[in-house]
């Protein structure tokens, strides 16, 4: 034992040492002669000293101080967690701590592959489930890699999942700490878990088994063989055999899922003696702890090893926060993402295009009211169906580029934790393609008409606009308003002709960074790295494009509702009255029925004298810009955007990206570094600050702003300052004109 390390077997004897319940349980089992991998624990004091001595404590605190954690969306928590993780990765262990850990690490563990596990001092307490919040790593070899992974485990004290549960964990910079377990790696031929209590029948126990390591089982990627046994005697009550198609094994570093040669795997994975041994050990462990347990085990060379044990109440307890459960379900393994990718590319996107094409091009004018009602119902059904696919399949797939980003940062320790986006951004985004098309359309029109007249006074222009809109159905209007689409587009096109030259983001060394990333893997693991990059790129592109695919259905529905509005006349007193498809359908069926209005959100601060001076959010795209604010409250505001203004809005969605080439910065209420607005801002090389909760309330159109995309700050200047700054800008532009 050194100052910061203790042998697992000794933890139980150290009454004043809190290495977390996971470590303590392992120590107790060792003292009771249960067979476990050998190892040591790095005490929580090492973590505390590290963050104090290196100044990380203050930096973490500042990161968490941006916003109340409870007000953060999952994306914002993920971003905060990524930045903190990068701080740990980039901060070296100072010499005395490094030496202490190395001298406490037994020589065999320094040479052989090890497992590095988290054991948080707040995990698995009070009968609440906190399993899986922190990171563990298997098959790590060599001192430097071990030390690197210790820091990753420490960083996972602040994982996105842990931040989600910050209240339950009482997560706090001064009191929370993380122990790290370093154990001998046991590469078993078959592994699994055992529950002392079947969730469906408390009198029974459950044993599950897979080939190889149990990571694939725990991650939910491999279906296991399952035995239901009597909780008292261990007698087998029923058994279920899986396909045995895949298994998890070790690679140069970490693990990999492999396909199994099915020959000779048709019989059950465990024989009766093995089931009996697992059950017997489970019973012994339950007697030691005096409660039902959930254990992880593995067989190596015929010997049963116990890897972990925790009270069963811990894992089986349910989280009633549905949003949080859904958010955390977004974290997917690479295998899961590969499956999703194939499904999205080969099944969903072609089917979406086909379905949208089938619905578009129908002449709504010629339909009777009854037929139009039927058309709305059909379009709504299609929209609802694809929206469900979007939430359940497309959004989880977006985790692909997050997974890539995390691996990139862990391996290359970049100064900017979002450097990885440069590599992903080579993909072709549909919204940018549309913007280029609009710019070219605007130039074309300008040449032919010498000045962009109103569409209603120029039939040729009107025809061209209609064709453009048809090509990009549903891109510049939303469910509430569509009738002004042509004028909106025309106004934006007019502005585009006079905009300053584009300063598009062209990050240097893209190829170099890609090579650095791929070369950080051994030859054996290069295929995994390329797979990860491929998934990252596809998911990054889809994160933008999926809105456009879905937007087509929304546009088609809006188009049919617009047609209905024209017919319903006075019964539709405003757009909000006739935005509910069910109400519109009813009104088309019954001549006297008046559609009910959908209530508008009226979130306004009652204190009219409150003025923001500085607002803090996330620095989502670097750069500094000054300009006049344009608050986008509704779709109609899009047409008012002037060249050089700063857009302030709830969230940039693909319907709004037409105006982005005009603006000098973006400020969003919705938070996140990888949300649509942030992606587009980076593509155009303009600053973007996201996650300012009351941005659209506190900032007014006409306010003069400075947007600091490095630090995530929006400064609202008072009138005097604004006048001075506007005058300076005016002087500068006059001078430029004189020179030219």
């Amino acid at each position, binding site marked *: 034992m050194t100052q910061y390390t203790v042998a697992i077997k000794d933890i139980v004897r150290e009454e004043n040492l809190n290495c977390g319940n996971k470590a303590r349980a392992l120590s107790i089992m060792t003292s009771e002669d249960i067979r476990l991998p050998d190892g040591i624990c790095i005490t929580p004091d090492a973590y505390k000293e590290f963050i104090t001595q290196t100044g990380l404590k*203050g930096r973490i*605190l500042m990161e968490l*101080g941006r916003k109340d954690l409870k007000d953060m969306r999952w994306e914002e928590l993920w971003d905060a967690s990524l930045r903190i993780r990068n701080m740990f990765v980039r901060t070296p262990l100072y010499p005395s701590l490094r030496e202490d850990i190395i001298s406490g690490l037994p020589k065999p563990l320094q040479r052989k592959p090890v497992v590095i596990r988290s054991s948080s001092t707040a995990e698995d307490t009070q009968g609440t489930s906190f399993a899986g919040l922190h990171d563990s790593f298997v098959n790590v070899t060599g001192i430097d890699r071990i030390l690197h992974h210790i820091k990753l485990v420490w960083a996972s004290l602040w994982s996105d999942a842990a931040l989600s549960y910050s209240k339950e964990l009482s997560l706090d910079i*001064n009191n929370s700490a993380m122990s790290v377990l370093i154990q001998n790696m046991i590469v078993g031929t078959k592994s699994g878990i055992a529950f002392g209590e079947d969730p469906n029948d408390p009198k029974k126990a459950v044993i599950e088994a897979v080939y190889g390591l149990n990571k694939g089982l725990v991650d939910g990627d491999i279906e296991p063989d399952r035995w239901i046994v009597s909780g008292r005697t261990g007698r087998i009550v029923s058994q279920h055999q899986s396909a045995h198609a895949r298994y998890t094994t070790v690679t140069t570093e970490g693990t990999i899922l492999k396909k199994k040669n099915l020959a000779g795997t048709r019989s059950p994975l465990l024989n009766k003696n093995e089931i009996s041994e697992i059950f017997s050990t489970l019973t012994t462990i339950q007697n030691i702890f005096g409660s039902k347990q959930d254990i992880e085990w593995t067989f190596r060379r015929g010997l049963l090893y116990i890897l972990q044990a925790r009270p069963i109440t811990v894992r089986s307890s349910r989280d009633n926060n549905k949003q949080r459960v859904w958010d955390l379900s977004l974290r997917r393994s690479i295998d899961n993402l590969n499956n999703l990718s194939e499904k999205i590319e080969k099944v969903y996107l072609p089917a979406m295009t086909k379905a949208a094409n089938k619905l578009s091009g129908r002449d709504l004018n010629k339909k009777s009211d009854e037929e139009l009602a039927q058309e709305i119902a059909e379009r709504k059904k299609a929209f609802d169906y694809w929206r469900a696919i979007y939430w359940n399949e497309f959004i989880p797939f977006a985790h692909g580029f997050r997974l890539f980003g995390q691996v990139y940062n862990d391996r290359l320790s970049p100064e900017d934790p979002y450097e990885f986006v440069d590599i992903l951004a080579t993909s072709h985004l549909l919204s940018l393609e549309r913007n280029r098309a609009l710019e070219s359309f605007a130039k074309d029109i300008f040449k032919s008409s010498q000045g962009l007249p109103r569409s209603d006074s120029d039939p040729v222009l009107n025809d061209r606009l209609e064709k453009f809109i048809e090509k990009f159905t549903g891109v510049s209007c939303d469910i509430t308003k569509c009738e002004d689409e042509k004028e909106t587009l025309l106004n934006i096109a007019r502005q585009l002709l006079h905009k300053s030259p584009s300063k598009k983001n062209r990050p240097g060394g893209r190829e170099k960074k890609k090579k650095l990333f791929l070369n950080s893997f051994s030859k054996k693991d290069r295929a995994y790295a390329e797979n990860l990059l491929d998934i990252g790129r596809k998911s990054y592109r889809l994160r933008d494009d999926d809105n456009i695919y879905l937007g087509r259905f929304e546009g088609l529905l809006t188009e049919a509702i617009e047609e209905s509005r024209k017919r319903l006349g006075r019964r539709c007193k405003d757009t909000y009255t006739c935005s509910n498809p069910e109400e519109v359908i009813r009104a088309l069926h019954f001549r006297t029925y008046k559609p009910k209005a959908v209530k508008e959100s009226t979130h306004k601060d009652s204190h009219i004298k*409150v003025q923001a*001076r500085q607002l803090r959010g996330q620095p989502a795209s670097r750069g500094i810009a000054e300009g006049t604010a344009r608050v986008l409250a509704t779709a109609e505001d899009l047409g008012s955007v002037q060249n050089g203004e700063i857009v302030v809005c709830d969230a940039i969605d693909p319907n709004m990206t037409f105006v982005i080439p005009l603006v000098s910065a973006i400020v969003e209420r919705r938070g996140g570094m990888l949300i649509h607005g942030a992606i587009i801002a980076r593509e155009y090389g303009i600053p973007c600050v996201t996650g300012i909760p009351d941005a659209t309330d506190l900032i007014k159109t006409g306010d003069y702003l400075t947007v600091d995309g490095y630090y995530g700050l929006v400064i609202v200047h008072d009138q005097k300052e604004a006048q001075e700054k506007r005058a300076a800008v005016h002087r500068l532009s006059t001078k430029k004109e004189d020179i030219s």
Partner: protein
Amino acid sequence: MLKKRPSLRSDIEKLLRKERLGVIATQGEPYPYATLVGFSFTKDLKHLFFATMRSTRKYRNILNNQHVSVLIDTRKNDIDDFKDAVALTILGRAAELEKADKKKYLTLYLKRFPHLKCFIEDPETALVEIQVDRYIFVRRFQEVKELSLI
């Protein structure tokens, strides 16, 4: 749906209730002069009061220039301050209360500082009123909002 935060006004009132000391800056020549005072305030947030001897530098400064600034904050002098501390800068105009008004607001002041009874009853002690023009509220290190009363 996110829960709406308490209003800026209630954040300010909460801070004024919690803290009893603040730093007042008066306009000296040539240097601005900052010093610690105990303050009380009215419920409508329009007035702050503090007591001072007439022989002090801050009192002399106020006679020459009524514009003052007061800083009230919750710092504990540890690292958490950068996340948790809030600070309020108050901009206003200061003047000594006349006898009648002094009597009126003295009770309010002594309710907060009963141990200053002897000090406040000293004939050399003035009760100074600050008419607040503006509150500038800072939280989370860089988030700045302003409540204007003029």
